[in-house]
């Protein structure tokens, strides 16, 4: 069994409430930080831990915190990104639902480290019932003196509030989130300035994912060095992975970074293997990361065992690798059609584009239409090249990374499964049946270089 830092107590009775949470060592990090440490010392521990942002980009959290501008007399904010809308990702919901005080505690300790006046938890609108759970936890924390004025007699004041969204994937992008929190449409801002300088209400702001903020708790409790002992290289600590698709045991798992992909997919402690049929493909880190064939998930192109780390999953770059992303893992069995799934992904990004940049707004719609046509047996061979061309023209040419996120799934599907796209053009009558590959799995020619 791997070590659990966030989920250690998740099954303890009463852990949802303050009393049960306290009984299992809750709020120790607040006591330790406020009574025995300076804010700078807390930032130092987070730096030592090697913690990287768990929202998707993997940017070192300690470094992000040290960029926060501190002009005198200007209030600062910490905002928790609980928008969790990346397809395949449901880890934050699980954490907030089962152990809400862990996030509240992390917000207080992080708020202290950053000298923030107040914090907001921006939660996606669909999670209304989770919002209620957190509201209750926050009220309990206020009543017990963990929030408000002069916490633990330390002179540190900190207010924490919930903020509900209303359905928009783009509001997970941190500047769109801030716009939305200010009561506007979720249009991403042009950067720079970055939120660390001009964030919420034009004040210096740190935006971090739910899991990142929760991880600050064990880092402060046990020290950054202890946290960094888990993992491999620059992938330290534990990571929550939400696992879905055609696996035997879907769910949220806390893994030690560095376990093998094979263990994660096939052991009964985690996914328990593929349901029924053979493994076809994997999306390891949410729909925005490249899809890769099953064999490339288990082993790199060079034949090395692939590990669940930021570095190993991206080994080979986009040619033969993918990304750890948000930890939204889903696997496809051989009944699935990659063209259909790629069309589905394209529709998602088209629907979620905020519409500010023409390459994203128009390109995603165009890709959706082309993919729909190919999937339904009306495609031409040139459409495949056209798709390739469109995705390339979106990537890197937009205000926010949603454009890239829309391009990568299409690019990787064509890169690895081109023969399946061609099959759709060649056998239009066969693919009219939506279950086409369930009846007769597509036989892909394994590329010798990474067979």
């Amino acid at each position: 069994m791997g070590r659990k830092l966030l989920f250690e107590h998740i099954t303890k009775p009463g852990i949802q409430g303050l009393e049960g949470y306290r009984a299992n060592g809750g709020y120790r990090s607040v006591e330790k930080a406020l009574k025995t440490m300076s804010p700078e010392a807390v930032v130092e521990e987070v730096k030592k831990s090697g913690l990287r942002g768990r929202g998707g980009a993997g940017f070192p959290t300690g470094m992000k915190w040290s960029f926060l501008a501190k002009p005198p007399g200007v209030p600062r904010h910490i905002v928790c990104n609980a928008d969790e809308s990346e397809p395949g990702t449901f880890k934050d919901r699980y954490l907030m639902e089962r152990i809400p005080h862990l996030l509240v505690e992390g917000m207080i300790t992080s708020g202290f480290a950053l000298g923030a006046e107040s914090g907001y938890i921006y939660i996606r609108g669909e999670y209304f019932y989770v919002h209620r759970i957190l509201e209750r936890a926050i009220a309990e924390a206020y009543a017990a003196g963990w929030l408000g004025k002069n916490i633990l007699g330390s002179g540190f004041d900190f207010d924490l509030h919930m903020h509900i969204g209303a359905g928009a994937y783009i509001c997970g992008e941190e500047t769109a989130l801030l716009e939305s929190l200010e009561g506007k449409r979720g249009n991403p801002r042009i950067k720079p300035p970055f939120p660390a300088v001009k964030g919420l209400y034009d004040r210096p702001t740190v935006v971090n994912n739910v899991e990142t903020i929760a991880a600050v708790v064990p880092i402060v409790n046990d020290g950054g060095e202890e946290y960094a002992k888990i993992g491999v290289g620059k992938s330290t600590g534990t990571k929550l992975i939400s696992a879905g698709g055609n696996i035997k045991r879907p769910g949220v798992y806390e893994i030690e970074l560095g376990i093998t992909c094979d263990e994660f997919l096939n052991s009964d402690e985690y996914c328990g293997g593929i349901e029924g049929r053979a493994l076809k493909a994997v999306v390891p880190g949410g729909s925005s990361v490249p899809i890769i064939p099953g064999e490339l998930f288990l082993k790199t192109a060079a034949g090395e065992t692939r590990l669940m780390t930021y570095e190993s999953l991206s080994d080979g770059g986009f040619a033969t690798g993918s990304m750890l992303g948000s930890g939204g893992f889903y696997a496809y069995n051989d009944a699935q059609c990659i063209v259909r799934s790629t069309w589905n992904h394209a529709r998602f990004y088209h629907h979620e584009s905020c519409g500010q940049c023409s390459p994203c707004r128009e390109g995603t719609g165009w890709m959706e239409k082309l993919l729909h046509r190919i999937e339904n047996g009306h495609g031409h061979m040139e459409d495949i090249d056209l798709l390739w061309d469109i995705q390339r023209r979106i990537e890197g040419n937009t205000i926010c990374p949603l454009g890239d996120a829309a391009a990568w799934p299409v690019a990787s599907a064509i890169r690895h499964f081109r023969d399946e796209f061609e099959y759709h053009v060649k056998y239009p009558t066969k693919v009219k049946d939506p279950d086409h590959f369930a009846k007769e799995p597509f036989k892909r020619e394994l590329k010798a270089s990474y067979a």
Partner: protein
Amino acid sequence: MGATIKAVTTREGTKPFAFSEAALAECRSIIARYPAERSKSALIPILHIAQSENDGWLSVNAMDAVAQVLGLKHIEVYEVASFYSMFNLHPVGTYHLEVCQTSPCMIRGSEKIVGHLSKKLGIQPGETTKDGMFTLKTVECLGSCGSAPMLQCGAKYYEDLTPEKVDAMLDAMRAENKRQTYTDR
């Protein structure tokens, strides 16, 4: 929010909208979460309350009442309400069934669930049954991919769906006949 606010707005020929006292109290407590000059931040949370108080959708009257409560221009409210997918700008059924159709759910059979609902209710996604009981909608990932296929109705998630479970759910809804909204506790 001063005492001068009249929380009732009307447009000729359409149903007037008024916040209940309880809703106004909740609006006040939400506005208090933000710095005094930043009360616009409360717009989305308050739109949710208005929608719940207006049979699950935002009429122009409801949006105008929100503008009044927050001291905003009407257009500032409309432009936000029209951006977010959870705000319904047209009436919806007593039960608004939002089925997730994104890839991880598709892999686990969401298309069959949509098809089953469509057949059972005699409507396509985007439509409402004649009796006004059900609206069917397809939506994007709801953060429940491990319990796919799934749907949301009001504040509730219905997970690991099968055609049998869907039938039982519909029967229970018909028997209960009570509007579900996101803000239900």
